[in-house]
Each structure stands twice: as C-alpha cells, then as structure tokens.
C-alpha cells in the first residue's frame, strides 16, 4: 500500500541522490517563481524528458498525476471568471478573461512540471537513501531520525491495522450506521495508537541494546563520480539559462 515506486534500471537511478535532490530543489524553485509562458513550457519539457529517462512506468505515472490535476481542474472552474482583465467571451452573467485563462494555464503547466520532477526523483531513489542524502545535505540529524522512524512505523501501523480489521471480521462485524459501529471503530483506532506506541518503545529498546547512541550510519556511501558531476552541471546550467530567460524582460 505504501510501497515505493520501484522500477528497473535506469541511468537516473545510479546518480548520486544528493545531485538529484539539489536539481529537483532548484528546478522547483524556478518553476514556482517563473511566470513567462515559454519558460514554463521549457520547464515542462525538461520534466517530461527526465521522467522518460527515469523510466517511470506510464500507468503508474498517470495514476500519480491524477490528484494534482483534479485540483487544477477545480481551479479552472473559478480562475477564468474571477481574474480581472480583458474579457474574452461571456457565459451567461459570467465573463471569462484572457488573463484568467492564462493564469490557470500557467498553474497547470507549473504544477505538472514540478510533479514530474518529483516523481522522477522518488521513482529512482529508495526512501531510505533519500533520508541519508538529506542528512548529508545538512538536514538536522534529529529530523532525519524522525523521518526514518516515521517511515518504519507507517509499515508497523499498517500491519497492526490489517490484523485488527481481520479480528473484527472473523467475529462477524459488519459496519453500519449505528452506535455499535462507531464505538468499534473508535476502539480500533485507539488500540492502533496504543499498540503502535508500545511497539515503537520496544523497537527503540532493541536499538539501544545494540549500542545505538543517536548516530546514523548508512551502508550506501555517496561519492560523486564523473557522471554525477556532468549531470549536475548540465541540469544546473539548464535551470540557470531558463532563470535568465525568465528574468530578462526582453526576448
């Protein structure tokens, strides 16, 4: 259920995760700031290129793009009418403005470009590796710890949840609209919390028993090789060029 997007071998998969994080970070910031249509279109193309290189399976890609685009569809219901500007045409009492349409279009392109990059990152890097890379990039140790624990406990909670649901099922529970159902569900959620708390404590004890003193070690060492450096330079150059295009009033 919370399985990561896993896929086969790709060139992107073997890049240093720190490089990937840095590129996605700067890319996202530029996309969030940019307003010029041609810059946005370039960003979207770049996003598509990277996702293709990362070999994300298409059905999975579309599934992950659905939530974002549902929200964007909702914005299309409002923005063209509520944005002040030059009228294009009218639907009844409502007027669609040119600026409104452009604004909504920009948001759609931005969002999708940023999501494509994020999906490419997640699809090519295991979550644990991302955590270690964030640590290397200066995220405080305690936050990274919390990140690791949370990721592990999501699985613990999910398993405890499946067990509790099974236990309710085999005793003939059928949910309905009644007090018995509400009480049962609240018991289940409460029990889930209590059990997860205790499990968390015991796991932590087990770590202490093995000499854990608050330091994180990773078996995957990161080292920048030639390919990483070239990719980093290429991508950052692309971002900078687009940034200059955005910033310069002419062209």
């Amino acid at each position, binding site marked *: 259920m919370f399985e990561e997007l896993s896929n086969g071998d790709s060139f992107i998969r073997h890049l240093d995760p720190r490089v990937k994080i840095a590129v996605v970070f700067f890319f996202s910031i530029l996309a*969030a700031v940019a307003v010029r249509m041609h810059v946005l279109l370039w960003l979207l193309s770049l996003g598509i290129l990277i996702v293709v290189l990362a070999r994300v399976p298409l059905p999975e890609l579309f599934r992950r793009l659905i939530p974002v685009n549902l929200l964007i569809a909702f914005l299309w219901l409002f923005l063209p009418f509520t944005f002040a500007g030059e009228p294009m045409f009218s639907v009844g009492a409502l007027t669609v403005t040119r600026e409104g349409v452009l604004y909504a279009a920009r948001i759609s392109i931005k969002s999708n470009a940023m999501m494509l990059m994020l999906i490419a990152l997640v699809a090519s890097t295991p979550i644990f590796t991302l955590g270690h890379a964030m640590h290397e990039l200066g995220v405080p140790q305690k936050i990274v710890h919390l990140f690791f624990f949370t990721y592990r406990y999501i699985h613990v909670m999910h398993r405890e949840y499946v067990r509790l649901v099974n236990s309710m099922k085999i005793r003939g529970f059928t949910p309905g609209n009644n007090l018995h159902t509400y009480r049962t569900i609240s018991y289940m959620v409460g029990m889930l919390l209590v059990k997860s708390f205790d499990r968390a404590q015991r796991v932590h004890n087990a770590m202490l028993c093995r000499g854990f003193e608050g330091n994180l070690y990773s078996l995957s060492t990161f080292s920048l090789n030639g390919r990483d450096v070239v990719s980093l330079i290429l991508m950052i150059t692309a971002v900078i060029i687009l940034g200059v295009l955005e910033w310069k009033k002419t062209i």
Partner: protein
Amino acid sequence: MHISEGVLSPTVLLGGAVLAAAGVAAGMKDLDQKEIPSMGILSAAFFVASLMHVPVGPVSAHLILNGLVGLILGWKAFPVILVGASLQALLFQFGGITTLGVNTLNMALPAVMCHYAFRWGLKPQTSRPAFIFATFASGFGAAMIAGIMVGFSLYLTGEAFLPAAKLVVAAHLPVMLIEGGLTAACALFLRKVRPELLEGFYAP
C-alpha cells in the same frame, strides 16, 4: 489538507517556509533522542490519516489528526508534521518541495494553538465531560483553523482565489466534525487503557 505545487505566489511560499522553519526550530529545542520514537508514531498516524481523503478544490481534504498531535506534543507538532508532510509528498505527491513550508505551517500552527487552549483537559483530575469537551474542541478547532489558514494562503496569493478559498473552508466542515469526534474517542481510549501515555506527555 494540502495546497498543490505551482499554485501559491513566491511571497506566500517564502513566508510559509520561514515561519515553518521557526516553528520546527522551536519544536526541536530541548528535544531528547528518547522522544523520537513516540514522535515517529504520531507522525506515522498523521501520515496514515491522510489516506482517508476527499478532494475539495485545490486542496485535498482528508483526516488530519493535527488536533491530536498538537494536544499531545505542543511545539513538537512542527517537526512531526513536517516529516509526515514530506513523506506524503514523496510517496503520494500530496504537495511538493516548495509548498512543504506552507503546508507544514497551516497544519502545525493550529495544532500548537489547540495545545495551549485545551491541554488542561489531559490532566488526570479532569472530569469525563470536561475531558471529552477539551479533546473534541481540540480536534475540531485544529481542523477549522487549518482550513481557514489554507483559505487565507490562497487569498494572499491573489484575490481571484477568494471564491475558491471560501468553498474550501466550507467544505471542511464535515472534516472538522469527524476530527473532533475521532480525537475525543482516541483520547478517551488512551485515558482508559494507557493513562500513563497522556500524563507522560502532559508538559506542565
């Protein structure tokens, strides 16, 4: 309750990120290594709650549990929600990198506010009705303020978002009721089965 990437203006994004960073720093002050596992559980609970969701406009409405997290943790809700929200972004693409700050702020600040408003309810000597009131109010209130803050973030981005922002807040009413009920029910269960947990967390 997330705002998607690409919607908010750079000013709002930056402001959110700065304020969220301040909140996280406050939450990390005198944070003991020993507390991290239990915080991780709440962070996981916060993450899992987001699986029950209903799309409402440019945000995705789902259970938040920030009231419960805040009640128990106070300022530590900031790092907990930051981590929960980043995992949501990484695993489901709910929000993204640039919106992480705003999204954390919108959910964690109400949590801290409810902590100070209602934590008296967790004291062992609180009567049952008062306990239920405080915990319900915390769940309901935290969801409500979060809804308002999401609406406000949209409004700050542009006045054109106002109708959409209003709709978002209105659509969260059912979420608030569910949050209140669930928070109260969970707290009651904890009080009966593991009162030490609530007392242990109650920071005087």
